């Protein structure tokens, strides 16, 4: 029977051990996360090119973005359009494929493997491959369309088609979300389906009133992670279009990269990073707030 003093010493020793075990993470968090987040906020109020010390300019960066910068709103619009198109498409497509794979068909693991495969590939290799596919003359897409007598557009060289091309390309990786949905679907208890069938529910009713509500937590998580990653898209635009033609694919993340590492305007770039951060934060909170209306935890709506 430990005395109170012995217990508190033991507790103190355990707390000490705890801090020791997480110390690499704590150091990493402070140095590589906390400090940079605060520093980039501070930098956003400065003019800084690394060679010379930062110069405090207050809200000038923020003001310039809204008034003087010709591509600030363009980049926001491009990124927003891309996200608005590709996030729902990926979600719906991934869900549809997962539903098909969940329908008690043979060779599920083969289908699953093949659909998931594109998601494990390197962003650069994928970008280069799709640059070839979308090439107006040597690309297989236009050559295939030519078989049907359709003259394909200039894709990455066309102001109208460049962004749609990137959206199409993003759907190649739909297997990533499909796998998650498939697993969620497999977790829906069959008793619920049985009960619904007994009550006379047809296939659509079963989907809408049983399947969908039961997987809403996973949908929520994927939606949030999708927002966070899509709004920061960089590699495909960087490798394939460099933001063109005429800014049609100037993703915000790309513009941020150019501002920081080509123009060496660290203050302005930090401002951009924080604007993006705020946007992502607001969107995420909005989604989470709305989730009480459509997400079912443990089969009940959390109010």
């Amino acid at each position, binding site marked *: 029977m430990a005395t109170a003093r012995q217990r508190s010493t033991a507790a103190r020793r355990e707390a000490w051990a705890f801090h020791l075990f997480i110390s690499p993470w704590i150091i990493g968090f402070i140095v590589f996360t906390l400090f940079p987040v605060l520093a980039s906020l501070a930098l956003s109020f400065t003019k800084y090119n690394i060679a010379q010390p930062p110069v405090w300019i207050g809200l000038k960066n923020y003001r310039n973005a809204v008034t003087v910068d010709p591509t600030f709103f363009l980049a926001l619009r491009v990124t927003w359009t891309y996200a608005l198109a590709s996030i729902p498409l990926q979600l719906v497509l991934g869900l549809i494929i997962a539903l098909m794979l969940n329908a008690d068909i043979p060779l599920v693991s083969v289908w699953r493997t093949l659909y998931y495969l594109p998601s494990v590939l390197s962003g650069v290799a994928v970008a280069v491959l799709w640059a070839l596919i979308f090439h107006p003359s040597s690309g297989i897409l236009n050559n295939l369309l030519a078989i049907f007598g359709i003259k394909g557009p200039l894709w990455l060289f066309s102001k109208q088609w460049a962004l749609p091309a990137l959206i199409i390309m993003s759907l190649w990786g739909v297997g990533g979300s499909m796998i998650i949905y498939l697993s969620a679907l497999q977790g829906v208890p069959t008793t619920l389906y049985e009960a619904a069938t007994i009550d006379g529910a047809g296939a659509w009713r079963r989907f809408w009133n049983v399947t969908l509500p039961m997987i809403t937590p996973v949908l929520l998580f*994927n939606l949030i992670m999708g927002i966070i990653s899509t709004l920061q898209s960089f590699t495909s635009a960087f490798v394939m279009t460099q933001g063109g033609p005429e800014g049609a694919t100037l993703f915000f993340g790309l513009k941020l990269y150019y501002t920081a590492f080509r123009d060496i305007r660290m203050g302005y770039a930090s401002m951009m990073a924080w604007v993006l951060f705020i946007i992502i934060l607001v969107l995420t909170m909005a989604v989470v707030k709305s989730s009480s209306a459509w997400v079912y935890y443990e089969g009940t709506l959390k109010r």
Partner: protein
Amino acid sequence: MSDSTMSTAHHAAIRKAAGDNPRPRWHQGKKASRLISKTLIMLMLFAGVVVIMIPFVWMISVSLMNAAEIYAVPPKWIPSKFLWRNYYQAVTTIPFMLLLRNSLYIVIGRLVGTLLTASLAAYGFARLRAPDSNWLFAVVLATMMLPSSVTLIPQFILFAKLGWVNTFKPLIVPAWFGGGAYNIFLLRQFFMTIPLDYDDAARIDGCGHFRIWWQIILPLSAPALATVTIFNIMYSWNDFMGPLIYLRSMTESTLALGLYFFRGAYNPDWNELMAISVLLILPMVAMFFFAQRLFIQGVVISGVKG
């Protein structure tokens, strides 16, 4: 729970009323329609798979073609002659072995750091109690959602001031300080499923926490560690923006970066470009095929339980 018992009772009542016929006639019609819908689904899946596989097949075909055949209409799927020479050319134009060595160096450096520090932190969060452990773990979770662009620039400035630009250090060192919130989360969840009896037994034998972590928890966590390994390797191998920002010369570049430079500096034909791309994705494809279950398991744990 009461729902299901009611429905099974309900179901049993229906069956009894139908005279306990195991397959009433309306069921047979249903069976046929189910077969039709399954076939339909298989066809759609097959069509989808064909569309998904086209880019792969095309990539490999082009890598073995001569430059003129790429432009053929209708597209030529099988090259008339398999030009393995394209691969030889691509691999000798860029310092392939050097780039490969750099990539491996970074992959392994990151992997070891991640496995060690993430599992240490995960052990702390899973097994050790302290007054601030709960809110610290909330911080871990919060960092999982932090967009990387907001830490990008100050991190770069820090490493630039340290003189670490054009070295591997900025890419490897952070992994030794926590190894990523995702991994800590994943490992902590797994550690929590290991029964405390093992810890207790070890403690009776005089093991301190470190030995428990090293000799009990880690060996028992092989599946979770394998999953973290797979994803870490994939992330490091495919990483483009990190090397792009920190590695400034061809001799320090990774393979992924090398592909990008190759395209810009040499303006190669598509076939050589595809050859390099195939070589770049080959290890990941191979790893995926051998470790499929770990991939899927990992995606599921973070996506479904997250």
